[in-house]
């Protein structure tokens, strides 16, 4: 038993060039059995290329890809897509427009026509589309088409399922339900999955584990919480949610000094050399403020966000975004003092 056999899917240091540009640069990632991994990253970071490589649609210049310990792609050989047992779901559903819903699903089922139709009907029930078997794709809504696409992808009993921005074209009010349903189906059937998105809200809801891509590499893998609170790069910090950038000087292993906010203390040591000039990232919910006639800040704007108010506060030359609980009723124009709440510091080079 080799190292890769521990995982449902193992991508080992793959590189892919496209038109003399390195799209993937020695990228590695592993997905355990029954795990949903979300691949996050800005557009152009190579997310879709990873899925295409796993599906066997692209050749590798370096590295290998294994499913259940069996090597499917290497530099020399590629098992063709139809023999890999990997299902794929696209943003635009990609249903076969000339075939009924039932026929769309039946293709992947290698049994007699009768058995295939029986299995396809069971899959339609699973994705809550029973009764739509004879409909054609163009007669269905986006959400319904995506449900059919899920059924079609599951028909081949995939060991791994790939989802490329599957919820982007689904109406917002249907999205939550669709995500919950699909997640439940994947868990029920113990299918490992990789899910690509640029929407962090979808990642938080749908995935067990997140991997962030930057310049053709996975730079950090972990839970949503760890990527949100301890991002390893500035791009990741910003991708996971809004925040404020402060120029600070490192005072000691816990403390940094900001011109406008004074000393900021981290709950964990940050590991950066004393005296260094760095940029500190603080999320809007890691700051608070109170009315203070002699305070250093002034509120200049306030936006209602359902859960809280998003307030814009000017401090010296700097503009800070800070969340205000709905119970706190400070309005625009107020003079305020700012407090940094206890958190682990996020510090990045220049």
């Amino acid at each position: 038993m080799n190292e890769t056999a521990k995982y449902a899917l193992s991508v080992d240091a793959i590189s892919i060039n496209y038109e003399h540009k390195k799209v993937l640069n020695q990228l590695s990632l592993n997905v355990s059995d029954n795990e949903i991994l979300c691949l996050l990253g800005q557009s152009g970071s190579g997310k879709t290329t990873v899925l295409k490589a796993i599906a066997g649609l692209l050749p590798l210049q370096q590295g290998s890809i294994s499913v259940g310990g069996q090597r499917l792609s290497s530099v020399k050989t590629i098992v063709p897509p139809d023999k890999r047992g990997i299902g794929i779901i696209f943003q635009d559903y990609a249903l076969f427009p000339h075939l009924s819903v039932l026929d769309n699903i039946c293709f992947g089922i290698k049994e007699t026509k009768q058995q295939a139709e029986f299995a396809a009907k069971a899959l339609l029930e699973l994705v809550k589309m029973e009764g739509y078997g004879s409909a054609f794709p163009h007669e269905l809504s986006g959400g319904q088409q995506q449900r059919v696409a899920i059924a079609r992808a599951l028909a081949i009993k995939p060991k791994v399922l790939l989802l490329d921005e599957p919820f982007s074209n689904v109406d917002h009010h249907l999205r939550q339900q669709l995500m919950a349903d699909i997640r439940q189906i994947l868990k029920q059937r113990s299918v490992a999955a990789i899910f690509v998105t640029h929407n962090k809200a979808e990642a938080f809801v749908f995935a067990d584990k997140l991997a962030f891509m930057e310049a053709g590499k996975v730079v950090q893998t972990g839970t949503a919480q760890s990527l949100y609170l301890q991002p390893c790069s500035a791009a990741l910090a910003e991708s996971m949610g809004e925040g404020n950038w402060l120029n600070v000087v490192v005072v000691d292993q816990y403390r940094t000094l900001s011109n406008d906010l004074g000393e900021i203390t981290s709950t964990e040591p940050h590991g950066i050399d004393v005296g260094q000039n760095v940029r500190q990232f603080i999320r809007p919910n890691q700051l608070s403020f109170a009315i203070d006639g002699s305070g250093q800040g002034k509120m200049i704007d306030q936006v209602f966000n359902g859960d809280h108010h998003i307030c814009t506060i000017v401090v010296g030359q700097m503009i800070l975004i800070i969340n205000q609980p709905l119970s706190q009723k400070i309005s625009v124009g107020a003079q305020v003092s700012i407090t940094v709440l206890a958190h682990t510091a996020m510090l990045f080079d220049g």
Partner: protein
Amino acid sequence: MDWQAFEVSIKLALLTSLTLLPIGLGLAYLLANSKFFGSVLLEAVITLPLVLPPTVLGYFLLVGLDSTSFFGGLFFSLTGHTLAFSFTGLWFASIIYSLPFAVQPMLRAMETIAPEIREAAWCSGLSKWKTFFKIELPLALPGVLTAMVLSFSHTLGEFGVVLMIGGNIAGETRTLSIAIYDSVLAFESAQAQSMSLILLAIALASIMIVFTFNRSRSRVVRL
């Protein structure tokens, strides 16, 4: 009315469009799915007969099919027949002459199929061949039908090339369009008129068949 010429024309048009079906499909698939070195040149060469004067094309074919040329010589040594001034030579020339009319509609139809459709089919367990016959070909069917009808009617109406390489041998290379020309030269205007009307009717009917099919289909499948 020259029924013998009519028969030659129909036979030539049918054979040409049927031969162009696999050739056109293969070339269209190749051009639609891969951008390789020289693919622009290949597409340009295929499209060339569209802009070249038929007499120019006919001249080059005449030279190329002559038994002193490599291809014509090879054919002669294999079959004992010459290609120039024969029905087979005419058939071969028509394939080249009508090639753009077959390839272009097929290519345009195949290009409209989203790559994800093909990839989804592969990942659903369909081999490349099965994907082609069960997914891509049915989706490109309007283009394929248009290609067939266009190459049929285009071959039927071909004149310059036929004159250059076919000569005017009754029952062998005299097509309807040549017969019309002959009748006009011989002041047999009634003959010319009836034959022209036949060609007009066939051309109109075939174009209408395509339009009718594509309309009824677009109601079922919205691509």
